């Protein structure tokens, strides 16, 4: 995995200024976009496509707070995402119950359920951000793995037909 922060020349941090992120992204796009390399050799163009793709992919990753958190966690504690993958069975049971609740909900129950899961998701993001600020990469990684079930539940609740 390419280091998205390094590609964009930014310090790894959760609280990125969105304006700075976008400015940096556009600067680098102007520098590397293959549109500005026509007439150059095939190798140069291929290199530009590669650099430009890295810039686009890094920007997309860092714009999303969850992906950004994963990347920061990896910088703090390399390999932590993979190491913390296995979640306790108790948590998985709860997650399964939540998924069942979402699948079986009535239309009337939807707004309340939505509010509840959304609050959980926001709470996760706050705890992840705090863990990362305190350089607890592995703790953040566990929370990230757990939060995935809640994010998926929220997505399924909003958009049962979309994937």
């Amino acid at each position, binding site marked *: 995995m390419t280091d998205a922060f390094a590609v964009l020349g930014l310090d790894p941090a959760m609280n990125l200024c969105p304006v700075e992120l976008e400015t940096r992204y556009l600067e680098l796009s*102007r520098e590397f976009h293959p*549109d500005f390399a026509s007439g150059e050799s095939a190798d140069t163009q291929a290199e530009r496509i590669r650099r430009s793709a890295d810039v686009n992919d890094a920007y997309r990753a860092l714009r999303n707070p969850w992906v950004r958190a994963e990347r920061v966690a990896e910088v703090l504690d390399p390999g932590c995402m993979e190491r913390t993958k296995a979640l306790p069975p108790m948590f998985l049971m709860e997650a399964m119950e939540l998924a069942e609740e979402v699948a079986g909900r009535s239309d009337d129950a939807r707004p309340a359920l939505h509010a509840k899961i959304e609050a959980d998701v926001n709470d996760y993001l706050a705890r992840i951000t705090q863990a990362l600020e305190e350089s607890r990469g592995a703790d953040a990684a566990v929370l990230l793995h757990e939060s995935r079930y809640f994010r998926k539940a929220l997505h399924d609740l909003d958009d049962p037909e979309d994937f």
Partner: protein
Amino acid sequence: MSSDSEPQTVVGIDLGTTNSLAAIATPNGARVLRDRDGEALIPSVVCFPEDGDVLVGRDARARALELPSRTIHSIKRLVGRGGDDLDADMAQLPYRVKMGDRGLPRVRIDDEEYSPEEISARVLEKVKSVASEALSRDVTRAVITVPAYFDDAQRQATKHAAEIAGLECLRIVNEPTAASLAYGIDGSNDGTVLVYDLGGGTFDVSILKIHEGVFRVLATAGDTHLGGDDFDRCIADKITALLEEKADGVQELDAYALQAIRRSAESLKMQLSDADAATLAIDLGDAGEVELSITRDEFEAEILPLVERTIQCCKRAIKDAELTVTDIDDVVLVGGSTRVPLVRKAIEAVTKQAPRTDVDPDLAVALGAALQAQVLAGTDKSLLLLDVIPLSLGLETMGGVVSKLILRNATIPTSVTEEFSTQVENQSAVDINIYQGEREKTEDCRKLGAFKLRGIPPMPAGLPRIAVTFTIDADGVLRVSAKEQRTGEEAGIQVVPSFGLTESEVKRMMDESIEHAFEDMAAREGVELRNKARAMVDGTKKALAMADLPPDQTYSIKKLTKTLGKLLDDDGSSMDDIRNAVDELSSLTGQIADDVISSAVRKSLTDES
């Protein structure tokens, strides 16, 4: 570019279903290039008279009724497509289309066969000659536009057509994106814009953010098989029905009648853009004569489902852009079919605002392409165009499921690297199947290509690590490269393109993706359940071998594992039976304190997420 050479002329070309044209950027803005008669629009029609030279453009269109089976129109609908789904189209075409090699369509004139690329190349040659004459210099380089929703094969085919026509295609640009350049170039229209582009054969909608010379596409959606031709067909069907009523039975129509019906339908459609009703007496040659009267209300009732499809695309694009309707600052209409009043009404209703009227729907795409051409010619660095991939790209994984690599609406260029290995000892080749589409199963997506990794060094199974990089370049075209991680050598790759799946299937899969979401989910759940159960069987077996359990527990676990294994070996096993066996096994292993087993089970549970 070498510094001593003069900057070469690069034109922008809008290669349309119905009309094509070229434009050029000048210090005073872009302008379209006109022929000696002052016409900019060149009909995308090619005529092969029995004696004499091939005609292209207005001359060809003029001969369409006289030489119906030798006059080719709407070739763009066939470009880069497989033959399988063209049956419905071909029945209505006055000219003959046959299936050639690999099931690809070929236009047949006498004993000659032409690929759609070759016919497109004829149109491009004509555009090239009009441009060269207008500029008094030889034009050899161009930016060519395609519908944003064109897939990899259609883009490749368009590049091939340019090559055949002797044009170097510097870039493929999406039509709505090009139109937005023409609209936003002067900087007075910075903001979020929705471009609705309904041409003769294709529909696109793109949402862009324009800010200080940066044109960024946020989302795009569309249908490469929906356009004015389909509106014409609604009227043509009425003419045919009238004819059958008159003759009291199904009529076998000759090429002349088909061509006459098509032309009459088009003419009636155009009249109905201004009038509330239109009448036309139609001479169908041997098939006789009919008179059709049609009101605008009747016409609108026929095309309503088609227009509704475009509106659904608009809604999806807005949602994909993570916006709401109120975020749209401007609506720009492109393509001749946006002259149909119902289309304007529908787009106005969904966006809650009147579309802009200061953009010429016929010329905007070519003008925008010319502006992008100027960037590529190296004379303009003020513009930055950031476009997206219209359809997700994925790989076939276990059980015919598509695992997505690149999601739709990702900014291009974009790339993803995936690692592959071997399954048997000394395996020297690995097959990779690539699909484009949004659905979950391979059979519902368009197969883009089968790639074969060759020259893998002989090693035990699973040991080689082949990193394969999938890159979508700035043309929206896929490039693949591979490297063996242990030796660091570029693995030789043989690329086998397949056009086995067709564009209507892409369309179908988008339509069906909503309709069949639940079926998909069930199918995916089935595959996932089987994969999970298989992992559980394997994991439990391994754990049992390591664990030191009392014989009675070992026996019950072995028995249940065996039962589950048998269920999995039988393709006909029901999901419920498998699920019950999984539940039974997991409750049993769950009771057992030995953490060797429960950790193996837990692993099999978490691996799926």
